[in-house]
């Protein structure tokens, strides 16, 4: 391989894009591409995994390896991929139905592992690809034009839930702010451990409430306002607890001021670090590079011989 610097073209594909005009997803694709380019992650060393939904189509438009998988299951799939080759940059993207309805169990349990994957949920409040039913993030009392009646269920707050579930980098972004989002993606990829970004994604077709006009006046950048999300001493349980509570508090803000930016960052040992301790050969190289020809099982048979 030539090692000349990568260009934007390296992150594109020729696949016809059929998202609606004005969809926030375009911005997300651009931000992923921008961040990979800026980090000079080689396309062959990145794997983008997605579920099913409008959001699910993302990998088709990005020139890395990609898996457009099944509804709600992208996280476990990404998990397996990461363990098979922990040198890959693995990014998982889900819709809010994908990740918080059918996939909620994986969302919760993935948080427990601190595996070095960046997970992003496109929060558009609706099941877009199935034509606009309420997703679990839709506000109670809210009604879009495609709904018969307003929602009567409390919404899930994805960022807050991620903090609760143990993700060690938690942020929120806005699909139309590509620069800010791509900077968060870079931080998320570079973070060692499980990173989560909730992306407020405009769906002009089905979500006629949470539009650009809705968001623009209320968004503010946590970091610009001096919010310090970083745990200085990860082995200080008190500091961790305080920072997490502060992060949850921030993530609950609504109304006239709606925060984007980083809520929490704490550096713990990653899941992959633990596995390397356990399996000597994984420390040397990723599982995928192990030579599997000619394995002998004599010692296993010996054990069962009396």
């Amino acid at each position, binding site marked *: 391989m030539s090692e000349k610097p990568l260009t934007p073209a390296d992150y594109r594909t020729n696949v016809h894009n059929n998202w609606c005009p004005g969809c926030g997803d375009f911005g997300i694709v651009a931000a992923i591409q921008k961040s990979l380019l800026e980090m000079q992650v080689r396309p062959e060393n990145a794997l983008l995994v997605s579920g099913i939904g409008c959001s699910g189509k993302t990998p*088709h438009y990005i020139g890395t390896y990609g898996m457009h998988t099944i509804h709600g299951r992208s996280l476990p799939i990404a*998990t397996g991929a990461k363990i*098979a*080759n922990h040198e890959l940059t693995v990014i998982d993207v889900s819709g809010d139905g994908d990740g918080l309805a059918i996939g909620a169990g994986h969302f919760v349990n993935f948080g427990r592992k601190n595996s070095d994957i960046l997970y992003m949920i496109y929060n558009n409040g609706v099941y877009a690809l199935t034509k606009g039913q309420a997703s679990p993030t839709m506000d109670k009392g809210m009604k879009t034009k495609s709904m018969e009646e307003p929602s009567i269920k409390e919404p899930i707050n994805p960022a807050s839930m991620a903090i609760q579930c143990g993700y060690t980098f938690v942020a929120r972004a806005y699909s139309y702010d590509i620069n800010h989002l791509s900077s968060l993606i870079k931080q998320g990829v570079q973070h060692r451990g499980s990173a989560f970004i909730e992306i407020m994604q405009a769906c002009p077709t089905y979500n006629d409430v949470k539009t650009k006009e809705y968001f623009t006046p209320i968004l503010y950048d946590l970091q610009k306002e001096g919010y310090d999300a970083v745990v200085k001493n990860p082995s200080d349980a008190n500091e961790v607890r305080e920072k997490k509570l502060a992060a949850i508090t921030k993530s609950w803000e609504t109304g006239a001021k709606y925060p984007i930016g980083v809520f929490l960052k704490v550096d713990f040992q990653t899941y992959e670090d633990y596995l390397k301790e356990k399996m000597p050969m994984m420390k040397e190289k990723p599982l995928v590079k*192990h030579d599997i020809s000619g394995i*002998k099982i004599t010692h296993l048979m010996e054990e069962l011989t009396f």
Partner: protein
Amino acid sequence: MVILNRVCWMAGGPQGGGVNVSADLFAKACVAGGLNVFGNIEYNSNIKGEHSFYRVRAWDSNIRSHVNLVNLLVALDSETIHTHAYEMAPGGGIIYDGEEINLDMSDKGVAGVTQRTDIRLFPLPLTTIVKSLYGPNEKPNMIMKNTVMVGASFGFLEYDFSLVERTIRQMFKNKKPTVADFNVKAARAGYDHAKENYEGIFECKLQSDHYYDRKSPDERHMLIRGNEALAMGAVKAGLKYYAYYPITPATPIAHYLEEHSSECNVHVEQTEDEIASVCSVIGAAHTGVRAMTSTSGPGFCLMLEGLGFSSLTETPIVIGLIQRPGPSTGMPTRQDQSDIRFALHAGHGESPRVIMIPGDVDECFQIGFESFNIAEKFQMPVIILSDKHLGESYITSKWFSEENMAVDRGLIATEEYIKKKGSYNRYEITESGISPRAIPGTPLGMFRTTGDEHTEYGSISEDAMERIKMMDKRFRKMHEVEKYYPEEKRIKVYGDLRADVSIIGWGSTKGAILDAMEMLKNDGVHANYLQILSASPFPSRSVKKFLDSAKKRIIIENNYSALMSGIIREMTGVLIEHKIVKYDGRPFSCDSIVNGIKKVIKDSPREVILGEQGYERAL
């Protein structure tokens, strides 16, 4: 009369009360003496207290199943005696705690042993014996009673005690040395008590080194379960990632691999559910490692979207489906063979898959290995259909041969390959249907896969013609599988071609069928037997040929509706006239099969339904 080297021994008692450890010791000590052993366990979906039992058959010739008669019963409680008295062989003996259990229970209305005059009772003074093992200031541990009873068993059987001692020391080698010492002492006490008090009274005897020479390198034998053999095959194949969610009877595979994780460099992941298990396996397999999960029915129910995704995206995964009785939670710790149709048709849409069915531990090992070659060569899911009986029963087996086992990873699109070709289409239409796959990390190989129907490039397509091309491509691979894994390998025939009865079976019934065939031969009935080792691709021609030349055809299945007979009729047109089924959650014993076959020969019923305690119903 002395019955030499043919004993059916059983330990029974409350779960958690030491049945398993006792029986393990008994079985291993028999193996240490070069005897053939078959051991199977019946236990409840419960942690402590319910009645469980463990049968060990120790034999001079190659046996592969249990029989319903018991020669020597170690009863850890009185329930065991009353539950199993009916299955004692005439002349058999029952070892129990004579100081705790009073067998004169006729007034309590308990039927059973008190009505058997043809068996012997061995009420050992267990408390006294155990106490005698301890110094005056030590608190005696009454769990030692179990070891005393095992020791006594060998005393009755006049077995070489040094083998028992050696086995105990090997079993406890990871504990403090005093543990082994103490157990040896306890076993010895039981052994001596039996010898001293009952010398010559019991008719069964066990001698060591009868059947094979454990010291010769070619004759090394193991005591192994199907689940372990499967795991060993997978390790041999280069398994790197194994995911699971706990479920009986599949969990032992995971535990076995977990124990060997560091030395074999296999990661074992306990996921949040079976959906995550199969999906993480897909992720790992896509990323280039050999990956597997195993489960039982309820868990398999949750894996079907993953299975279909694997088939459509041509991702090579292996799933072990270890059957137990359904539907629903059913009987979690029991035996059944009713998921074959489910495995065949699981998942929406039509998706190629291979379904391999081992019938013994050797096949578990072979298939555990070969499944990965097939999965990767043909880029499709392989399901290994096993069951509780095969997975959890112990059997003596020669060491597996590791000859001629080559890892074949199929077509891989390397950087060089792609460079030479000039471009890369993951789902290139080829004559064989197989397209070289690029592993993430490979320069130039970047592609996007999708669970939607797709173009050769891998992007979503709803075009009618693309759809036809892709369906055809995927199904063409099944023809390639048929060549690589030909019918000769998908069936085995045992017995004479010209036989009075022809048996058809699949999976774990194999052991009992083979043993039954030998028993029938002694009675002058000549049987042959077709074992089906693959449900997909189905060996239609060979099955038809066998059936066409058969005189009396009997299918034997451990399920309600004789599912395989339906598959056979669908694939060959042949209606098998006689069925022997058992759907009571228990495996066939060889003697029950003998009875079933005799019934068919005698009355020609359409169906014989067998059950425990000699239950037999003919339709």
